[in-house]
């Protein structure tokens, strides 16, 4: 079976800092894989490399068999890879509904004049994108918030809106960059259901997350990073018992003692 996403030996150096160092992993079709690690271990950098926000220092990335690291950002999304952002990237002046409609822009086919004049096939297209946007907002639980300005939403709901916007691009693979940040425990419960619902639509997910309750509940495979390198890979059970992972997160006893002294 061909992996949906295959990352081969990628590196990113910022000056002398090796933020990501010779990292390889893959995401299979229909799976939820998580990328975890302590702060500064290179998780977000890794996502930024795959989506071309940063340039690779070295390595190759393949998506559904085609090479990704030569394409422009928008072309990657057109191939079926969408993402959300750790620090949220909103359109300040657009409504929640418009954000999701913006996500379906790339699938609109009708030419400029007919779209603007709402003539011929444009009507059907506008109705279809509007219906999809409403359906996606219902899915993430913002069905009644469409008319609001995005910036008027509370933090956790903005994250959900970003997910709806990303889903509107009809991805095969969705990157969720810390979706649970700023969410309450009940919101995380709903997020767990949402992540599973998205996967059940046939969309694979790569999840970067700090909140272990979310990771351990949904991820089938977990990749652990530390200092830009992969230190472990496996199921939730395997990761929880891996001594290297425990060290990376908690430190060794003697290290802690020397640091305190």
């Amino acid at each position: 079976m061909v992996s949906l996403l295959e990352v081969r030996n990628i590196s990113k150096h910022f000056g002398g800092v090796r933020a990501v160092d010779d990292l390889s992993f893959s995401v299979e079709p229909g799976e939820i894989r998580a990328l975890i690690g302590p702060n500064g271990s290179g998780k977000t950098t890794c996502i930024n490399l795959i989506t071309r926000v940063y340039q690779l220092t070295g390595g190759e990335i393949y998506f559904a068999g085609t090479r990704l690291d030569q394409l422009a950002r928008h072309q990657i999304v057109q191939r079926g890879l969408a993402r959300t952002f750790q620090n949220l990237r909103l359109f300040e002046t657009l409504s929640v509904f418009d954000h999701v409609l913006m996500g379906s822009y790339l699938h609109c086919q009708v030419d400029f004049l007919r779209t603007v004049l709402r003539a011929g096939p444009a009507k059907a297209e506008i109705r279809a994108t509007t219906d999809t946007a409403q359906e996606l907002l219902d899915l993430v639980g913002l069905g009644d918030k469409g008319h609001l300005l995005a910036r008027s939403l509370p933090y956790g709901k903005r994250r959900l809106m970003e997910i709806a916007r990303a889903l509107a691009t009809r991805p095969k693979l969705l990157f969720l960059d810390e979706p649970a940040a700023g969410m309450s425990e009940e919101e995380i419960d709903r997020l767990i259901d949402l992540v599973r619902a998205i996967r059940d639509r046939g969309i694979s997910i790569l999840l970067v997350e700090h909140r272990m309750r979310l990771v351990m509940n949904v991820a089938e495979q977990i990749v652990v990073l530390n200092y830009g390198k992969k230190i472990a890979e496996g199921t939730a059970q395997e990761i929880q018992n891996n001594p290297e992972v425990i060290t990376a997160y908690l430190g060794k006893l003697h290290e802690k003692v020397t640091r305190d002294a």
Partner: protein
Amino acid sequence: MNTHRIRNGIVVALFAFLALVPTYVEAPYVIFVLNVTCINIILVLALNFILGYAGQVFLGTIAFFAVASYTHALLFAKLGWGFWPSLPMSIVVTSVLSLLIGIPTLRVRGAYLALMSMGFIIVVGDVIKNWMSFTGGVWGVPNIPRPDIGTFTLTSNLHMFYLCLALALALAWLSLLIEDSRYGRAFKAVRDDQLAVEMVGVSSTYVKVLAFVLCGVYTGVAGSLFASFNVYISPEIYSFNYNSIFLCMLVVGGLSSVPGSVLGAILLTAAIEVLRPLKEKYLTPLALLIIIILLFEPAGLVIFIERAVAALRKFIPGKRLKEARRG
């Protein structure tokens, strides 16, 4: 929905006001200024695409305006093409030029783009001044005919005004349609966050170039109308000062707002006439006005009208009832 209706209503009201002026004031001077107002409205709407909706600091629209005027003047006065064939031709030339300029320049942002656009004005101005055999140099192009409709020639400024008004209204309406389409949404999204636009699979350069070409199309119409209306064009008309005036109109009226663009063009065209005794210092009060508006109401003067209309609507009981029923 409600805010859309208020917005469209203000546009219609402003144009209705312009259309009614000649019935009450017949002074030839006022009719002349009304023509200029309509042409300015089209120019401000053009600038609104790139500076308002798409938020790119491109300040070189006067150069497009000059190119459009000259294309029209040369085709019409020298080759005898007639108004209606020359108009689309100057639109095509201006929009192709905007495409050629837009693709390289829109890769840079902010102050760099502003600087490049200034350079563009100087280049176009110098070409016009020095290409004597083609443009007539500093002497300009005289004897540009007025447009004709069938066998009727619009020799009077009043008739010319109705043509300018009709075209300005049509273009304002088109602007509203574009604003409400996915293109308008994409322009605003690019202004707010280019990276996020790319991350929904849309090329931000494509969106910006589209805004740019629309700007070219609108200035093309304005340039044609101006050349025929003024009968004579010369390089000094297309000055930095005139360029700053469109900018003032857009900011004072309301950035990325069609009623704002129309309002700004009407108010400032009138204000400039009132300020004529100040001679070349007439820009000083306008600069002050811009500073005051940016400090206190960056959304422009149109926001006051919108608020007033929204407040007035609350006093109409029938409407309120209908809205309550609609939920």
